[in-house]
């Protein structure tokens, strides 16, 4: 059973798999999305050293969605790795949007990236919650 709910741009998904067709007392109750903390919405002067952070979500792995880049992490704080060697870098004085999607229950990124099987999902309440879109603008020398 899967439920999708929205609040403007924020998403909330709760799923419980492996139910019998005549199951009773099924409960889908997942927390709301994390709260984006840093950079603050519409912040300017963001650089590659700026730390992205958000409030914790129980047993979650997070996806930081930033432009074309998705960073999966188990931590509630992420500083973008130095990706200049692969020519991935923030452009100067450029507006960006970012969101965080929390998915649970996962103990680690390794757990999150494990090959999925029906057996591992059978009795689990899966939760996913994505924040509203946040905005920031990079500095002249990000």
């Amino acid at each position, binding site marked *: *059973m*899967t*439920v*999708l*709910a*929205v*609040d403007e741009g*924020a998403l*909330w998904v*709760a799923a419980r*798999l*492996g*139910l*019998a*067709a*005549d*199951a*009773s*007392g*099924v*409960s*889908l*109750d*997942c*927390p*709301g*999305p994390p709260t984006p903390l840093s950079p603050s919405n519409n912040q300017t002067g963001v650089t590659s050293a700026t730390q992205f952070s958000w409030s914790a979500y129980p047993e979650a792995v997070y996806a930081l969605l930033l*432009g*074309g*880049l*998705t*960073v*999966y*992490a*188990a*931590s509630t704080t*992420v500083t973008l*790795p130095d*990706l200049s*060697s*692969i*020519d*991935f*870098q*923030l*452009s100067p004085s*450029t*507006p*960006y*949007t970012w969101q965080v999607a929390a998915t649970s229950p996962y103990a*680690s*990124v*390794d757990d999150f*990236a*494990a*090959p*999925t099987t*029906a057996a591992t*999902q*059978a009795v689990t309440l899966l939760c996913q919650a994505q924040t509203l879109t946040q905005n920031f603008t990079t500095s002249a020398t990000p």
Partner: protein
Amino acid sequence: MPPEHSAWRASPRLNSAAVVTPQMQAFAATAALYLGLTRGDPALLLRSVATPFLQENQATLEATVTGGTYPQPANDFTTNLYFASPQAQQIFTLTGAIGATTSLAVSWYGPSSPTTSGTLYGLQVQSDDSGLPIAYPGYGATDTSVTNAVVTNASLAFNPVTSAVLTGSVTVPPGFSVVFIEGHSSSPRCCRWLPSSSWTPRSPRRFPTRCRPSLERLWE
């Protein structure tokens, strides 16, 4: 605001701190990093935007249905067919007057998979004027393999659909509104869940649900 990807460029690279998924090699505006990944058998997520750069296989599946209501009437009937394999997942929604045999174009990506083995599922739905299901004339599934550039015949026997009532509750966070509730059953049959109360929930609110057969089993 410029397009989100306009400020990023990428080329392939791998290091010990962050795993960059393969689509960077094919699609210059998209990358994914898995911080802290150590396992050697990860299932990495591939964005669909990268697929135009990958090799496509395409097969034809000639599906012949027995049972159900065929020829399908021009109005109020829909045949939903779904082919699912490790490489291909494709839904075909067939409305209007059709016969019992349908030609399906199945496609998937990857040069290493000229053949893909999976299951063809089918469900015929009869709806009322508002579009809500009122009957399910038949459901069936059959295992089949398809091969690039090859036509494969598949027979799909539709049998009557049973139903059951599933009860439970959904509590959404404050401020959120439910878009849909769908179900999937561990049984061979499948379910769609519809709130039997209002579709415009206050939050939090609990939703009694009713189970109806549909294709959502295929999400598993």
